[in-house]
């Protein structure tokens, strides 16, 4: 994403001559000089909960203006990492800097520069959408003259302008999530953290939310850090890091990652999968694994290979499918299993997530 040199919007002369003007130039300089900086920087981050290592040594960097995604199954340590970056959780060891400030030593400075959208809703159900936003604007010191227009802007952006006066308790899950995203943006943070922004939402709402995030990347000069366990959603990121078992397995752009797999994924179903796997190894020297009840393997040109497969495998084939590489395959390539298989085995690790504990309380 190209970086655009920005002017500090609040430094324009105030209509009412309020006192934000004297403070503004200094802040504008700060905003300007920070552009070249790395937005997020983590080195050897570790977090332990008792005997469980939720995050075991994570190192990465996110540039200003980038949209960076953490992709991994539930329990991979994504939420724990994000909580450490947001200063909500102290790392057991390692260093993290957000917007140039240490998340432990300069907690307050970090908090002034970030926006948060949590997995669980943190709205006041008994206030209206607009009142929730106003509350946020006041607590984050949005200049008074800007509060109204800014609230209009973000409500418009997430398509809730016509529901601004409704109590939040009357909102659906998707509307609440949109309102939370709008609120996370309201104070124009340098880095916006979205922890599973689409979890538990129906496909249509998920598509909408990604639409807003895309819009946001066009309109706001902010860095977005998000976590997701939906493969297809990771495609929206400039760069992704695949996380599994508390570690980053691989990190690159979605295109590069898919190119690194390079081969087509073939899935067949047979009456005798064991025999099929053995036959694939003997006759084609292919390493096949069971995945979601099918025999799966990779070949360079699937469409050319399949006729040979039927002719030479020696095991009857009930069905066959060929797919171009997806992030699912990237995940499988680097971890040896699909993300859904990983979810099934990783569910007990969820107990380590502070969010899950908070929700259960």
């Amino acid at each position, binding site marked *: 994403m190209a970086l655009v040199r920005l002017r500090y919007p609040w430094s324009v002369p105030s209509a009412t001559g309020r006192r934000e003007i004297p403070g503004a130039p200094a802040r504008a300089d700060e905003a300007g000089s920070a552009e070249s900086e790395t937005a997020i920087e983590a080195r050897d981050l570790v977090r332990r909960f008792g005997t469980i290592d939720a995050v075991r040594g994570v190192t990465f960097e996110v540039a200003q203006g980038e949209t960076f995604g953490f992709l991994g199954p539930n329990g991979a340590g994504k939420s724990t990492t994000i909580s450490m970056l947001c200063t909500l959780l102290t790392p057991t060891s390692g260093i993290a800097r957000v917007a140039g400030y240490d998340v432990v030593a300069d907690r307050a400075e970090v908090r002034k*520069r970030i926006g948060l959208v949590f997995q669980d809703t943190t709205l006041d159900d008994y206030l209206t959408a607009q009142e929730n936003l106003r509350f946020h604007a006041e607590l984050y010191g949005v200049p008074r003259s800007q509060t109204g227009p800014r609230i209009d802007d973000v409500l418009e952006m997430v398509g809730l302008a016509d529901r601004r006066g409704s109590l939040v308790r009357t909102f659906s899950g998707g509307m609440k999530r949109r309102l939370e995203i709008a609120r996370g943006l309201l104070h124009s943070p340098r880095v916006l953290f979205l922890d599973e922004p689409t979890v538990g939402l129906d496909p249509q709402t998920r598509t909408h939310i990604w639409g807003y995030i895309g819009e946001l990347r066009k309109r706001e000069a902010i860095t977005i850090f998000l976590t997701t366990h939906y493969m297809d959603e990771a495609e929206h990121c400039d760069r992704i890091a695949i996380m599994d078992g508390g570690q980053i397995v691989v990190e690159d752009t979605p295109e590069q990652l898919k190119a690194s797999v390079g081969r087509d994924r073939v899935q067949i179903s047979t009456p005798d999968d064991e025999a099929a796997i053995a036959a694939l190894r003997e006759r084609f020297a292919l390493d096949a694994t069971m995945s979601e009840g099918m025999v799966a393997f990779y070949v360079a040109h699937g469409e050319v290979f399949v006729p040979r497969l039927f002719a030479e495998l020696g095991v009857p084939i009930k069905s066959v499918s060929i797919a171009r590489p997806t992030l699912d395959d990237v995940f499988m390539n680097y971890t040896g299993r699909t993300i859904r298989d990983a979810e099934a085995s990783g569910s007990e690790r969820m107990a380590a997530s502070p969010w899950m504990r908070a929700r259960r309380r």
Partner: protein
Amino acid sequence: MDAGEAALSRAPFEEVAHEAEPSPRAPGSGMQAPGRHRADLAAVRVAGGRWQDDLRAVAMVWRRELIRFSRNRLRIITSLVQPVLFLFVLGTGLSSLMGRGLGAGGSDFKTFMFPGVVAMTVLFTAIFSSVSIVWDREFGFLREMLVAPVRRGALVVGKCAGGATVATIQALIMLALAGLVHVPYSPSLIFTLVGEMVLAAVMITALGTALASRMAQVESFQVVMQFVVLPLFFLSGALFPLRSLPTWLAVLTKFDPLAYVVDPMRRAVFDHVQAAPAVRTLFAGGVTWNGWTVPIGLELGLTAVVAALFLGIAIYAFGKTD
């Protein structure tokens, strides 16, 4: 010619001046336009951190309490049921048990109970308001407040101010019933009572906030009710005179901070009703320390100190919450 030239030369100048300084009569809109046109891309900014920002946070947290209170009409009505029952059912029952009034003017035991019941309204509303923090925690909104770049003290002060305001408003509704128990609507009496109500409300809200900072579950509210609120209420002298009690009970009442607010309120009421001197001494004789009657000024000063202490504890405790 001269005039035209002058007009021509002035016109651009005026336009520039206008651009640089949008009309002060249209705040909002004047700001919005330049901000929007500067770039399609909105810039980032650094939030909060100055003392003005903390003040805005205090005001906003306070406002939220009032919005939530005004929106919950049912709560306003139901909160009135209990004090009304105490005053008119228990009060009437006890009055007839005593068989006579307190003196001339038709005042009776209900007159005695009235300030106590007003204090009770303050107590219950204030505790309920401040302990709502536990609900905020349960429903996640507390996290929205705690991660904001404002001092925790600002959140606590806003919460206490809001709770105290709500409790005072609720008690004002009870105060409006004064005439029914033969307490006159004297401006000086009402002024005094309202001042004392505010003081009591601040103290109780601060206490509730301090307790709520350590409460993780909604169920803990019951514990607070049984172990804190009810003892505070029963020992405060709201329902019976604190004179001529057995020693063990008399000693306990001296440690109830609410007693030092109920007493001045009652003495103020008795200043405005006619009662025989003996009756007055029995019912509104004041709190005594080892036989010495504590003056009203000291009682109120003590309440203020206790309120400040609770507030300090609440701010400290909230600084530790995550």
